[in-house]
Every structure is written in structure tokens, then in C-alpha cells.
């Protein structure tokens, strides 16, 4: 996996709190056995009227032509709550998003996103308000997220965000987490030797 550092592009606004992973990718699309191909069903029930992909819902932001090709999704509190399905970040990435900016994320979704090189950025609501205002008044406005400097920039706005250093390193370097742990094989073996006898 290659790392991710700077995401720069247009933004799709989804100004709603508590978007759960059932909305991001509904259950009927979880029967796949691969990690790809979920983008077409991203936000399926909101995106298509009558459950039919031939009838896009014109009111849903991702269907509006001005947000075509957006690389960043702007949303609100508790994004990705509910089911642990990793299909949610797979679908967001497959659709074309490289970065999600929200007030807060649910724990499992956040970890799943990091593991899939999807940059997840939290900003307080007052700063998100300003970004929403920018995007709503000009859909072509560019937002640049810089992981190294931990900043989000949009015209005159510049905000900094927090991210733990290990998450940052993993995103920047695109490290193979399993490969890293396998290097600790001796430690794992010695732990196993000391496990409680009935386990």
C-alpha cells in the first residue's frame, strides 16, 4: 500500500449527524467476497429513489453534478456509527473519496478507515460550519488536507486537526500492519508460552 499525505480537491457536503454504516452501504450489498466494487452502492437508499439505480434522487448531494469528482466528504457528528462493516470505507474509497472531514467518528469506522488509507479528519463544528459555508456558496472551491502539517486549508481559512502519531505514521507510510506485527513473532511466542493453562 502506498501512503497518503495531501488530499486536495472539491468537496461534497453531507450536513447530517449520526450517519450510520447501514446508510453508507446497506446490508444487501454485503454479500460480496472482494474488497472492491462497492462504490456504486454507496449511500444506496438515499442516492437512488425506489431502490432502483436508474432513478437517482436529484436532491441527494452526491447526485448533484457540481459535486462530481469530489475527493473530500464533509459531514458531522458520529459519522460511521453502528455496524462494524469495513464495506463502509471500501465503498467511500471506491466511490472516489480520499478524505472524510467530520465533527466526530464512531470508533470502529475510524479504525477501519485508517486501515484502508482513507484519511479521516475531525474538526470542531464551528470550523465545519465555515467549510460548509464555503462549499455551499461555491461548489468548485478547493480544500487541501495536509496530513504532515495536520492542516485543512480552504482559501483564507486554515484549521489544524489532531491525529495520533501512530495513525499518522500508518497513513503516511501505508505500512503493512500485519507485516509489522509479524516482526514481533518472538514476543508473541513468549506471550503464548505464559498464557493461563486452561486457555
Amino acid at each position, binding site marked *: 500500500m502506498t501512503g497518503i499525505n495531501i488530499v486536495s480537491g472539491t468537496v461534497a457536503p453531507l450536513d447530517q449527524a449520526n450517519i450510520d454504516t*447501514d446508510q453508507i452501504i446497506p446490508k444487501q450489498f454485503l*454479500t460480496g467476497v472482494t474488497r472492491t466494487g462497492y462504490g456504486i452502492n454507496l449511500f444506496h437508499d438515499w442516492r437512488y429513489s425506489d431502490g432502483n439505480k436508474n432513478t437517482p434522487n436529484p436532491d441527494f448531494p452526491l447526485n448533484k453534478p457540481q459535486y462530481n469528482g469530489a475527493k473530500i466528504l464533509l459531514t458531522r457528528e458520529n459519522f460511521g456509527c453502528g455496524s462494524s462493516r469495513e464495506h463502509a470505507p471500501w465503498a467511500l474509497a471506491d466511490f472516489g473519496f480520499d478524505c472524510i472531514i467530520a465533527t466526530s467518528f*464512531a470508533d470502529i469506522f475510524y479504525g477501519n478507515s485508517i486501515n484502508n488509507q482513507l484519511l479521516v479528519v475531525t474538526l470542531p463544528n464551528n470550523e465545519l460550519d465555515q467549510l460548509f459555508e464555503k462549499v455551499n456558496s461555491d461548489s468548485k472551491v478547493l480544500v487541501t488536507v495536509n496530513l504532515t502539517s495536520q492542516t485543512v486549508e480552504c482559501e483564507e481559512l486554515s484549521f489544524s486537526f489532531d491525529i495520533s502519531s501512530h495513525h499518522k505514521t500508518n497513513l503516511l507510510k501505508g505500512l503493512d500492519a500485519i507485516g509489522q506485527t509479524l516482526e514481533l513473532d518472538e514476543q508473541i511466542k513468549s506471550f503464548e508460552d505464559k498464557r493461563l493453562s486452561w486457555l
Partner: protein
Amino acid sequence: MPTTLYQKIVNTHVVEDLGEDLLLYIDRHLIHEVTTPQAFSGLNEKGRKVRRPDLTFGTMDHSISTKSLALDACGPQNELQLNTLAVNCAQHGIELYPVGHKNQGIVHVIGPQQGLIQPGMTVVCGDSHTATHGAFGALAFGIGTSQVEHVLATQTLKQSRAKSMLVNVNGKLPLGVTAKDIILAIIGKIGHAGATGHVIEYAGDAITALSMEERMTVCNMSIEAGAKAGLIAPDQKTIDYIKGREYAPSDAHWDQAVAYWKSLYSDDDAQFDTIVDLAAQDIEPQVTWGTNPGQVVGINQHVPLPSSFQDSVSKDSANKALAYMGLEAGQAITNISVSHVFIGSCTNSRIEDLRAAAKVAALGEVLEGVTAIVVPGSVQVKQQAEDEKLDVIFKKSGFEWRLPGCSMCLGMNDDILQPGERCASTSNRNFEGRQGRGARTHLVSPEMAAAAAITGKFTDVRKMGEQV
């Protein structure tokens, strides 16, 4: 230094301190068909092996029919996923309980049932309701597929230290009020994201008074408050439940194990980041009215006015929820009619749940126009229920008696609702579209679901004697 139960379990599982993260050893890894195919293919692509197939256990539950044992009963895609699990388990030497096996069932029902879950363990599964197993004083949490692959390959997981929340429920639970009502009331109080970043420990005499199955119901929905995990300290009930089960410690190790389990509790002066108190006697049977489990009230209350919420996010969520649910602010909960009833899921499909629902079902017949299904949590639960003739009571009352699986909790099979249909459900999520596009889900206890089936609307189960 005084420590919490969570910290004690973490401290005994640290393989390596990585600074911000800890590399934790995983004692049990439960797997099912939906969240594992990509993990196994990742392993296979890199030529990696499953490190501890002996600590890994699989079952089929999400994608299966509740009407037929055929793997293709819900279409070729489901069949492919189920067969993929079977092939992966066979290839890597993992014990699997496939459809038709005597131990098959919902992953969070069969783990405890087989004695696989014991106090002090770390337990993971690619499923957010893994928190269920915290009822045994095990640290149990849901993980994504990349983490499933990590555990398969290394039997470890990188985890940061969670914050801790103590939820005390004290007092005596009124008759007709259940473990489901306790957890819904807790989520209602702290909110749908109220425990994000935390591990919850449930304590207090109303919690210790619960049976093991009831404790599983409470811990099961910890994720619905945003928590990473939910825990209850083990006691004699925990020990008695495990004794004699297939994977319980052998006789030679039993006393040693019990002595260890008895050391697993939060020290008196352990520090929690957050403490929440609830009085059991104040809890009514709960019914969700919205589209997240925190949008919940007592049966004798009304659908709240969006304007009654303090913050704009809750107001906005309430408005959206009312529109989706087809409800009016101020409407009495007892005036909401249902078209469907679902009794099942990893929250409420164990034998005690079915006994409680059957007791209410025996009071009358499913109202004409209402479809009611009962889906036992496992083959063993189904068998036990049939031995007790609960199936006869349900069928006589007009309920359908199905085969075990996750079923209508999430509808990955054909147990789905049509737009606008309204369901009293014993499951754990009332999200938009969860039980079918446009379908409206209200979360309730098994007793309340059975009462809704008979009366066709939400009814205080404590008044059922008067109504039928």
C-alpha cells in the same frame, strides 16, 4: 494502584507496549461469513497462515435462510459467501458450525453456549455486537475485516487504551421490565454516541440480579451507545453458567480458573472517566420511536416534540426520524400500530427470551393482519424451546417458528420488510432501512414484541392480563 476490570484484562494481554498502542493477545476469535472472505483472501495472497486455528471458531448466521437449510435459498451471492467461509475454514483447520450443524447459530449466541467465552478473556469478531460477551467479564469488541485478517495472521491486535465509564443500575426492576429495557434506558440517557471511546462497565444490584442471558442482552447493545465494549464483573452466576459446557476449563484446571475469575473485578477506588447512575425502579418498558437506539421512551409516554431537544443536532435528528418513521410529535406510543413483529437476533433470541415471549403469546392470538416471526438464536436454543413446547405455544398463537440465524435484525436474507411496514423488533438497531428499504423499526423487549403481535399496537405488557 486501584484498577478497573477493563484495565486488569488489558494488563494481562499486553504482548508489546507500542507507545500509543498496545499489542494485545486475543484469546478467542469468532468468525462468520460476511466479514471474513476478504480477510482470508488477503492472507492467501500473501501466503500467510492462520496462527491459531484452535482459538478461532466459525458459524454461519447472517446470510442464511430461516426457512430452508439450503445454502442457495437466498440466492447465488449468499451461497458463494457461505461456501467461501466453509472452504476457508477447511483450508485453515478452523472449527466451523455450518447450517445444519447441531452447534450452528448466531455467532454471539453460540460462543457462550459452547463455553468458549470465559472471564478475563479477550474476544473479537468482525461484528459490532461482539460486546455481548462482556457479560462474562471478558473484554469483547467488534472489529473490521482488516483487523480480522490481522488477528488470523498474528492472534494479536493493536489497540489504544479506551476511556472507562461506570454505569450503575441500582434498585429493583419492576415486574415486566427487562434487561432490554435497562439497556435501552441507558442509551436513551447517555445518547447514541454517549460512550464513544469508552469501555462501559455495568454494575449495581439491578445488574447483578440479572441472569447470564439477561446480562448478554445488556452488554450486546453497548455499541449502540457508541462504546467499544461493555463489561460485567463475573460472579457465581457466571461460573455456574460456564461449568460443564464443551469448552469450559477441564476438571484439572477448573479450580484454578475459578480462583482467577474471582479476582476479576474493578477495585473499590478504581477511577472511571465517567460515571452514570440509573434507578431500576424508574425504568418502564421501552419503545424506540426514532431511527437510532437513543431515540427511545417508555411505553406510557409520547413521541417527543423535536422542539423539546436542547441542541440543534438532536432537534434535526428528531425531525428527520419522525418523517422517516411516519409518526407525529406528541403521539402516544400506545397509539402506534404495527404490521410486523420480529422476535430474535443476538440481543434477544436465547431460551429465556423465548420463554418470556411465549408466556405473553399464550395470552392470545396474533392480530389479523400482523405477521409475527420467532427466530431462535441457535439450533440448541431451538431444540430446547421445542422440548419445552414453546414452539407449540407460538404456532398456536399465530407466530411463525423459524430456523436459527440473524434474520430480520438486518435482513441479509429474505426476511425483509417492504417500505412503510412497521415492526416491533427485539433486535438492536432501528436505523433507516435496517429491516428493509423504507421499513420502520421499533426496538422493544421480547415480552413487549409479543404483546404488540397480539394487540396490533404497542401495549404495556404489564396490562396484558386486562386486555385479552
